C-alpha cells in the first residue's frame, strides 16, 4: 500500500491552461498529467508528448489484413478446391480486390482501436483515478505528484495560483 499525494490546479480556460503548463514546466515543476473535458489543441506540444504511434500500428494491422485476405482467397480458390468459374483463372486477382480492401480496413481499424484501448488502459472493468468530478464537465485539472517533486507544497500552490488556477486542491489515493 502506497499513499500517493497529488496537488491539483483547477483551470477554467484552455488558453490560460496552455500558458500555465509552459511556465510551470520552466519553473522546474514536474506535471503528472493534465485532465480535460475535451481535446485541447496544442496541449501535447507544451506537455512535451510525442506524436502517437497508433497510425503506424494501423498501417501494420492493415498489412496483416491484406496478406490474410490474399492468402485466404488464393488458398481457397487456387489451391484447395480449384474450379472454373465463368472461364476465369483459378486465381483471378481482380475479383479478389474487394475482399482484400475490406479486410485491410477492418483489421487496420480494429487493430488500432484495440491497441488504443490497451495502451490507454481503457476497459469496461477499469477503476479510473478520478481527480475531480468536474473534469468531464467543464474544468481542466493539472495534477502534480508530490513524490516526484522536491519543491515545497506551499511553493507549488503559489506557482499554480500565479499562473491562473482558479482553485488549488489536494487529493490522496490509497492504492496498492
Amino acid at each position, binding site marked *: 500500500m502506497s499513499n500517493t499525494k497529488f496537488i491539483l490546479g483547477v483551470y477554467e480556460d484552455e488558453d490560460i491552461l496552455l500558458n500555465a503548463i509552459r511556465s510551470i514546466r520552466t519553473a522546474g515543476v514536474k506535471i503528472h498529467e*493534465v485532465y480535460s473535458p475535451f481535446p485541447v*489543441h496544442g*496541449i501535447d506540444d507544451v506537455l512535451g508528448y510525442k506524436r502517437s504511434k497508433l497510425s503506424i500500428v494501423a498501417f501494420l494491422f492493415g498489412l496483416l489484413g491484406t496478406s490474410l485476405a490474399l492468402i485466404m482467397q488464393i488458398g*481457397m480458390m487456387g489451391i484447395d*478446391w480449384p474450379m472454373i468459374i465463368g472461364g476465369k483463372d483459378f486465381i483471378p486477382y481482380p475479383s479478389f480486390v474487394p475482399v482484400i480492401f475490406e479486410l485491410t480496413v477492418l483489421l487496420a481499424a480494429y487493430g488500432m482501436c484495440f491497441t488504443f484501448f490497451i495502451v490507454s488502459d481503457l476497459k469496461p472493468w477499469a477503476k479510473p483515478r478520478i481527480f475531480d468530478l468536474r473534469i*468531464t464537465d467543464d474544468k481542466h485539472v493539472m495534477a502534480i505528484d508530490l513524490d516526484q517533486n522536491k519543491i515545497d507544497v506551499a511553493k507549488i500552490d503559489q506557482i499554480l495560483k500565479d499562473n491562473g488556477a482558479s482553485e488549488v486542491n489536494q487529493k490522496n489515493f490509497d492504492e496498492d
Partner: protein
Amino acid sequence: MSSESVIREPLITGRKTVHDVTEDISKRVEEKPTKLWMLAMTISLGLFAIGAYTIFLLLWHGIGMWGLNKTVGWAWDITNFVWWVGIGHAGTLISAILLLFRQRWRMSINRAAEAMTIFAVICALMFPILHTGRPWLAIYWMFPLPNTFGSLWVNFNSPLLWDVFAISTYFLVSLIFWYIGLIPDFATIRDRAKNKISKSIYGVLSFGWDGAAKTWSRYETVALVLAGLATPLVLSVHTIVSMDFATSVIPGWHTTIFPPYFVAGAIFSGFAMVLTLMIVTRKVYKLEDYITIQHLEMMNIVIIITGSIVGVAYLTELFIAWYSGVEAEQYAFLNRATGPYWWAYAAMMTCNVVSPQLFWFKKIRTNIAATFVLSIVVNIGMWFERFVIIVTSLHRDFLPSSWAMFYPTFVDVGVYVFTFGLFFTCFFLFAKFFPVINMAEVKSIIKTTGEKAK
C-alpha cells in the same frame, strides 16, 4: 488557440458555456422518460411486433410467402436492403469525410447520424439474412467457413460475397468509430450520476475514461486514422452493392455508371433521413442552439448536389442505352419510362430530381417545415429508384412468354414494417439513454465558434 472570422455565423447559438453543453445534453439522459417518448416507443414496438409475426410466417412457410415469381426473382427484399444501406451512408460520411475536410458543423449532428447508420445497416442486414429462407444454415453459405459438404468454399468471384464482406466491415468499423466517440461522453454522465446503478452502468460503458491529455492525444490520432480508413470504406460499400447489379448481364443493370451513381444516391438518401430525424429530435429535445438553421442548410446543400448527380446519372443512363445501339438495353429503358411501371419511374424522377431543386431557393432550404417534408419525399423517391431499377429490369425478360408483373403480399409489406419498428425502437432507445450530441467535440469549439466568442 485558433480563432475564426467574425463574419462566420456562430455554429452554437444561445451564448452557451462549456458547462451549459454538459447540462443541456446530459439532462436528457438523466430525466425520466417523458409521455411522448413512451408513446413513440409503444408505436415502434407495435410495428416491430406486427413485423415479427410476418417474419415468423416467412420462416415457417418459406420464401413463397413473398410475392416473387419465376420472372421477378428479386423485388421488395433487395429494394429494401439497398434502401436501408443507402440511408446508412450519411452517418459515417458525416463523421469521416467531414472530419477530413475540417467541417466543424458536423460536430452537432455526427453522433445521431452515426447511430442512424448503425441501425439502418442492421435493418438492411435483415433482408439478405431472411432471403436465405433458413438463416441458421446461411452462415455456411455466406462466410468462408470449412463445412461438411466437402471443402467447398465460397466463390470470391461473386459480387454477392463481396457484399457480405463490405456490409459487415462497414457495420463493424462504423460501430467502433461511434463507440470511441461515445466513451468521453459516457464518462461525463458517469461523473454526474446520482444513483449507484446508473453510475456503474455508465462506468462500464465509459471504459474508465479519465480525460488525461495523453489519452486525448491518442484519441485524436485514432479518430483521424479511423476517418481516413472510413472514407474509402463509405464509398466502397455502395460501390460493391451496385456491383450486385452491374456485374450481371441483365439489360438495365449492366452499366459501368452504377458505382458513382449508387454512392451519390446513398449519400442523398442518407442526408435526407438525417434531416428527418434531426428536425424532430431538435424540436423535442429543444436543441435549436446546437442544431441551427445553418446546420440544416448545409445538409440541404449536400442534398441538392447529390440529388443533381443522381439526376445526371438517370439522364446518362437513358442516353447510353440509346447510343449503345443494343436493342435489349434500349427496350429496358423505354419500358422503364413508358411501360406498366411508368408510375414508379415518374415518382422516382419527381421525388429525386425535381423536388430537391427547390432547395436552390434560400427561403425553402432554411425553412424547417419545407425541409422536413422534402426530406421524406427524397426517401420515398429513393425507394422507388431501387424498385424501378430492380423490378422493371426483370419483369420483361428475354422471353416474352414469361413476362410478368410483381405484386407484393402482406408478408412483403410486413417485413418492411418490421425493419421500421426495429429502426425506430433502436433510435428511441439511443435518444433516451445515450447523449444525442457529441458533448466533448462541441465543447472544443465553443470558444472559437460559439456565439459568446463572436
